[in-house]
């Protein structure tokens, strides 16, 4: 299930907005070196149009000039390599209320966002409430039991889950978010989400 059509290997893409253009169904079989306009699409499509390439190239140069990737973001992405988790520790995103809410035309940010991550033999539930520019993250590790909960990222915070596995993190800044749960010999780490 961990193919490119399944971001995060979480299985959530199938429940949210799987559309005909998802890589699973829409892949053209081209390699990653870019488009090859003379190539026939794997789905049987005829040659793709060649016209407009010069203007598209001008757009490409304009984007590089007027809307480049911010340099500091590139460095953060490079640094992501050193904080990546061990494969066997990764707890997959099993449920995200924002994915389920896809069919609703408008959804306000007033309701808490609920998420569940699964790891062999354990799950971790998160409830995220936005308050002003900060977030409160309440969570529970199941089966219940004390644990050490560490946030990943620049401003790492450690809290302790109570005997029922419950914990809370206040004043969490918006951004990429993930927690690592350590209890006894076990340790697992949630996939990253944006909060």
């Amino acid at each position, binding site marked *: 299930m961990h193919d490119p059509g399944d971001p995060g290997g979480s299985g959530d893409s199938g429940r949210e907005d799987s559309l005909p253009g998802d890589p699973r169904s829409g892949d053209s079989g081209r390699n990653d070196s870019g488009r090859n306009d003379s190539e026939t699409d794997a789905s049987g499509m005829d040659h793709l*149009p060649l016209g407009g390439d010069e203007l598209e190239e001008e757009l490409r140069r304009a984007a590089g000039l007027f809307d480049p990737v911010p340099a500091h973001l590139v460095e953060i992405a490079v640094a992501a390599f050193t904080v990546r988790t061990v494969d066997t520790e990764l707890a997959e995103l099993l449920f995200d209320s924002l994915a389920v809410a896809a069919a609703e035309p408008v959804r306000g940010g007033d309701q808490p966002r609920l998420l569940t991550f699964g790891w062999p033999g354990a799950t971790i539930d998160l409830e995220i409430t936005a308050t002003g520019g900060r977030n409160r993250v309440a969570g529970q590790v199941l089966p219940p039991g004390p644990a050490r909960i560490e946030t990943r990222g620049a401003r790492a915070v450690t809290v302790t889950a109570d005997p029922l596995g419950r914990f809370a993190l206040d004043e969490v800044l918006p951004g990429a978010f993930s927690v690592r749960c350590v209890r006894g010999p076990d340790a697992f780490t949630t996939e990253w989400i944006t909060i």
Partner: protein
Amino acid sequence: MDDMSTSGLFQAAAQGDAEAWRALVLRLSPLVWSVVRAHRLPEADAHEVYQTAWFRLADNLSRIKEPDKVGSWLATTSRHECLKVIRHSGRVVPTSDTDVLSPVADDRSPETSVLEAEAAEQEADRLRQVWAAFELLSEGCRRLLRVLMATPPPSYAEVAAALGIAVGSIGPTRGRCLNRLRELLAA
């Protein structure tokens, strides 16, 4: 390392090669950024989604079984994160947000200084016109073209993944949008 294929870089990174990872980030960052920009998120949200996409890829390096689809994987992941941010804010995607895609960027590209040169002024003027005309296009055209203008040019599979559309719809829409852009530039 720059002449290695993207899938080669991915495979080397998955085996722990930090330099390959850096090269992979440099190779595919414009694609991720283009997907985020195409969804016209506010600046702070755009930065966060970009980061989440790369953090997720780093965690999933050993789980992705088709290295040649890493671009599509990133494009899909970025799109899903964009949609979640949009849903969470309860906001519709703005159709004309002058803060987004403004020609004044915080981080100037290296080309900026090069273009100081007089010989390049004409090129810069032309690109400014192209960029201004691009801003006048319909939301649908801006979305598609913003992804298509990533560097290096994305594959159609990556564009489809970035926007959640069928591969077959890209060519005709691209042609129509570029024609519209050409008309705007001629006007």
